[in-house]
């Protein structure tokens, strides 16, 4: 049991006692115990695949534990389904977003509890009015009648947070709620969490952004390989990062976000974009379109692209990649004008894209890791007759498995069984296998743990060293600062600023990202 | 042990006409003291072929079959004959296959002709006619349609088919098709239908519009149609004596299988007749109506 249990001031709201969870072949959790008290924020930390989401799913009634006991509010708690948990006031924000894409924002917020008007019929007007207020709390301003499928990942995440906050709750479980958010939204969420804490609500919070965790958590529970690695307490000041990392990985922490040593940036311009504008999609009228983007990307350089949610970074990446239609502008690769109309064109020209929405745009959930890995490079792993040369394919995967330290059972394992971070590494391997000239990575470390994140950064740096031009879009400013040789900022479909990586600071970038927008006071 | 087994195969038990046929085969087989293997072609030539193939493996002693399609079933029947099994066909005659023991049938083309002639007789001065055809492409539909046209095409001036549509042998479709026809063309003098189900559907459509004097002709002489004829709702229905065909066929097949008795006639053709109010007693299934 926790060594600091004695220091508890108030009785625990939730106590997990010796919970174990086995899947076929994998023990995801082994004898884990922890406590959460009312009015505190408990950070749950650990590497990818440590078992965090599994634990949270057990608490929310999604799946039963193999053994162990859960006590909620002094009563033994055996939820059979999410509804059982919800009824007790346990509200969950899941890691894999659980919104219904075909329904509107308003309906998602009020799922199963739509406000009724006279005659007991659903009042759409009231539902939309109320949801407008609810999403405004997290700083989102869009028409609640928009279908969720038209939202960007970040917006979806905000909607999900807003929904959770609008429910009556005693315990809120948040599984990586901030992974797609930028600084501003994160700040807003933190202040809301703070207020909830004051109201006596307990919060369990999972994140791979340790600064965040350190700033807000009262206590932390760290998991390692499904086992309890220990508890950390905020003795006076915030919990220090090295202490967390040490608990997570089991050895002393090397420095995080070590800026790669200044490299010689090759001079040739690889990719050149001039006056790029995109077409407004009638299916998503509120989406940002590019309003004329000029950009140069040099061989061997890592260009960081920073911006707030909805600034058009993803649009830019997709436009270059041929995934969206271009209205005007030119793109040149190695000085030659190109006009990719489909991703296939772009790929053949040597451009790669790791998309931001892993679940919908990158992985083939039910297919094996091998297929997921080689799909963009089928030509490399097949002979002239069109037959796969499976041995070479397997060897290649095995080598990436080693260099990227991908944790997996076998190449045939469906990719959906991997933890999010490991899925991301497989997707990176997919593009590495193609050896592109230009690699665009959109939120490359979304949901990736610190250790792996550092590895991904190392990989990006190595790729750049080999002369690949890399454009990295990230909502995590420390990450942008850490790896970029040069940084541009975007806002409303335009580039608003540029500076060398060494000169950049978070403050400077924030200013450019927000430009004419007044920094809103935290409520 | 020594009891003979015969295969009785009909095109589709989805149609009451063939249910009756198989029931009669069954009754006669019982009367003759032989076992019967039943086969339902389920409106599919491959299925009926498969049933014959299964029967050959089991070495049945004779086959009595009403083929769904005379061309498509020919290979299977040929195969049976080559295996030395006597085959008697009912209702539809398979041309070009050597060695069929006998055929017992009433030609559908003749039936269609009889139906049209009955209508002509009822309207000596000419008539405006609706014609409801059977399922496009199906054997009986083609033959009956041919019979009707054989009679009416030469008399085009007096007997105009002003509305000719398929209702797929189905009552519900006949009802809506007739409704459409009535709305588009007004009341006809007669409606000729390729089976009784469609005729009964047409009866409902006319009744709904109070067109009770339209003469409606059916085909197959099902008990339900006989009642409608008796009540004056149908002007007539074509009787092809499926029961008699079936029983005769079984008798021929069993006689040959028992002691190689060659049938007296290789071709037993029953002349289809139109049953009207006045000759109801000629109908084979009058006994089934109460």
């Amino acid at each position: 049991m926790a060594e600091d249990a004695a220091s508890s001031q108030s009785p625990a709201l939730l106590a997990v006692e010796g919970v174990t969870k086995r899947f076929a072949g994998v023990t995801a959790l082994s004898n884990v115990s922890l406590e959460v008290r009312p009015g505190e924020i408990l950070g749950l930390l650990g590497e990818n695949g440590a078992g965090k989401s599994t634990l949270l799913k057990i608490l929310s009634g999604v799946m039963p534990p193999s053994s162990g006991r859960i006590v909620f509010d002094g009563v033994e708690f055996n939820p059979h389904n999410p509804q059982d948990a919800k009824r007790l006031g346990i509200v969950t924000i899941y890691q894999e977003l659980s919104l219904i894409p075909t329904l509107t924002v308003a309906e998602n917020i009020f799922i199963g509890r739509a406000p009724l008007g006279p005659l007991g019929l659903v009042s759409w007007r009231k539902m939309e009015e109320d949801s407008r207020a609810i999403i405004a709390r997290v700083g989102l301003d869009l028409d609640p009648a928009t279908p969720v499928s038209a939202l960007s990942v970040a917006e979806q995440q905000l909607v999900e947070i807003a929904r959770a906050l609008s429910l009556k709750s005693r315990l809120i479980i948040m599984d990586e709620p901030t992974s797609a958010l930028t600084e501003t939204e994160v700040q807003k969420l933190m202040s809301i969490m703070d207020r909830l804490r004051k109201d006596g609500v307990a919060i369990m919070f999972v994140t791979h952004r340790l600064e965040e965790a350190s700033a807000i958590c009262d206590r932390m529970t760290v998991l390692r390989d499904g086992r309890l690695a220990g508890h950390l307490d905020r003795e006076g000041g915030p919990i220090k990062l090295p202490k967390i990392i040490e608990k997570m990985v089991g050895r002393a922490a090397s420095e995080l976000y070590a800026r790669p040593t200044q490299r010689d940036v090759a001079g040739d311009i690889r990719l050149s974009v001039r006056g790029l504008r995109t077409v407004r999609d009638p299916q998503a009228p509120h989406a940002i379109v590019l309003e004329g983007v000029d950009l140069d990307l040099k061989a061997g350089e890592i260009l960081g692209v920073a911006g707030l949610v909805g600034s058009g970074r993803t649009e830019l990446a997709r436009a270059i990649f041929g995934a969206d239609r271009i209205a005007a502008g030119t793109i040149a690769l190695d000085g030659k004008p190109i006009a990719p109309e489909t991703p296939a064109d772009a790929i053949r020209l040597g451009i790669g894209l790791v998309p931001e929405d892993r679940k919908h745009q990158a992985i083939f959930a039910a297919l094996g890791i091998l297929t997921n890995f080689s799909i963009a490079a089928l030509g490399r792993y097949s002979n002239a007759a069109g037959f796969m040369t499976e041995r070479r394919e397997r060897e290649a995967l095995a080598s990436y498995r080693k260099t990227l330290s991908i944790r997996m059972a076998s190449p045939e394992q469906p990719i959906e069984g991997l933890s999010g971070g490991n899925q991301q590494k497989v997707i990176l391997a997919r593009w590495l296998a193609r050896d592109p000239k230009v690699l665009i990575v959109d939120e490359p470390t979304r949901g990736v743990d610190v250790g792996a994140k550092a590895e991904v950064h190392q990989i990006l740096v190595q790729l750049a060293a080999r002369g690949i031009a890399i454009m990295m879009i990230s909502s995590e400013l420390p990450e942008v600062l850490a790896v970029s040789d040069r940084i541009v900022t975007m806002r409303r479909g335009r580039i608003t600023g540029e500076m060398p990586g060494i000169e950049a600071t978070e403050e400077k970038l924030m200013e450019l990202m927000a430009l004419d927008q007044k920094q809103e006071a935290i409520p | 042990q020594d009891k003979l087994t015969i295969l009785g195969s009909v095109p589709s038990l989805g149609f009451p006409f063939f249910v009756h046929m198989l029931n009669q085969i069954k009754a006669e087989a019982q009367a003759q003291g032989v076992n019967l293997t039943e086969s339902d072609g389920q409106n599919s030539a491959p299925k009926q072929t498969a049933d014959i193939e299964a029967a050959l493996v089991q070495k049945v002693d004779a086959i009595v079959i009403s083929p769904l399609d005379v061309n498509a079933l020919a290979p299977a029947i040929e195969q049976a004959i080559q295996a030395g099994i006597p085959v008697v066909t009912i209702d539809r005659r398979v041309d070009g296959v050597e060695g069929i023991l006998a055929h017992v049938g009433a030609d559908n083309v003749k039936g269609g002709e009889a139906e049209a002639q009955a209508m002509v007789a009822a309207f000596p001065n000419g008539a405006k006619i609706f014609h409801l055809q059977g399922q496009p492409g199906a054997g009986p539909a083609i033959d009956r349609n041919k019979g009707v046209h054989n009679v009416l095409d030469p008399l085009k001036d007096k007997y105009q088919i002003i509305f000719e549509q398929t209702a797929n042998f189905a009552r519900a479709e006949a009802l809506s098709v007739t409704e459409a026809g009535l709305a588009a063309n007004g009341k006809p003098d007669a409606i000729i239908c390729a089976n009784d189900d469609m005729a009964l559907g047409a009866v409902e459509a006319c009744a709904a519009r109070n067109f009770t004097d339209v003469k409606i002709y059916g085909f197959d002489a099902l008990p339900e149609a006989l009642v409608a004829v008796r009540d004056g709702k149908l002007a007539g229905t074509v009787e092809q004596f499926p029961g008699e065909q079936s029983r005769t066929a079984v008798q021929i097949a069993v006689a040959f299988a028992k002691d190689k008795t060659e049938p007296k006639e290789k071709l037993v053709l029953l002349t289809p007749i139109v049953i009207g109010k006045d000759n109801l007693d000629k109908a084979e299934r009058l006994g089934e109506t109460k």
Partner: protein
Amino acid sequence: MSSTTEQSQRGGINVARLLMSFGPLMFLAVLIVVFTVLKPSFIDPINIFNIMRQISITGLIALGMTFVILTAGIDLSVGSLLAFCGMVAAVVAKGGTANTLSLSTSGTQGYGWFAALLAAVVVGALAGGVQGFAITRLKVPPFVVTLGGLTVFRGLTLTISNGGPISGFDASMRWFGTGLIGPVPVPAIIFAAAAILCHIVLRYTRYGRAVYAVGGNAEAARLSGLRVDRILISVYVIVGFFAGLAAFVLSARLNSSEAVAGIGYELTVISAVVIGGTSLFGGIGSVGGTVVGAALIGVLQNGLQFNNVSSYTQSIVIGLILILAVAFDRWLKSRVRR
């Protein structure tokens, strides 16, 4: 949701915009105009009521099917279930399986129309419930379960009736198929009332919204605390109920319950739903769309028959127009900003 629903959401109904935003509806309007020009008697009330009566049977089932398809399910058994329920209704109405054959209005030993109706819808709903149970508990895909249902119910129907029809119901029962209220046929009124009811349920009740949610993403719906299994079972109960209701109306209309009724209806019914804009992958669709889809098919068939077009040509024309109507809808959607 299809645009029709979205329009009504905003309150005001702008006919032109409605037409412009939903391809099948526009096609329907064009077809009516064309057929009327070809033969003005096409829009005689008598013919319009004919069409309404004709689409009411498959239309009723299509309403239930809309619920099923909204959950990303499918029900192939509806045609057989219709025959089965119709046979049950006939047995109850006539007090036995004896085929009295009389087309007259006698039928004294039976239990009357109300018992027949009740039997049909209860049996339909139960049969649907059993299939829903197999889908949710045995985890067999809806396609397989209801394909099994398709052959099982047909076999049961043939067994009950020994292949033949059961005919001759009393006038009070027949009224539901052939009666009029004012000038309007009763089946059309039943269909319209059911459509309005279904629209309200799907659009304005929590249950209806839960159906959309389950179809949009079953896993997310479960995580959001919806009882996904119960909702899934319920939609098969609903389509079964409607198959029973349609069976009753059809038997009343034909004055006969046939073992061969409803063969191939599953495709007609599913087409009406899909042409009406409901996605086979669930979560998107509306009752309004289904009604338009059913009407489009009905008008096409009637109009071509009305002009005595050969049945071969009819097949070709109907197939092409259905594809074009939907293609046109996609084109409109990709062009027009919502």
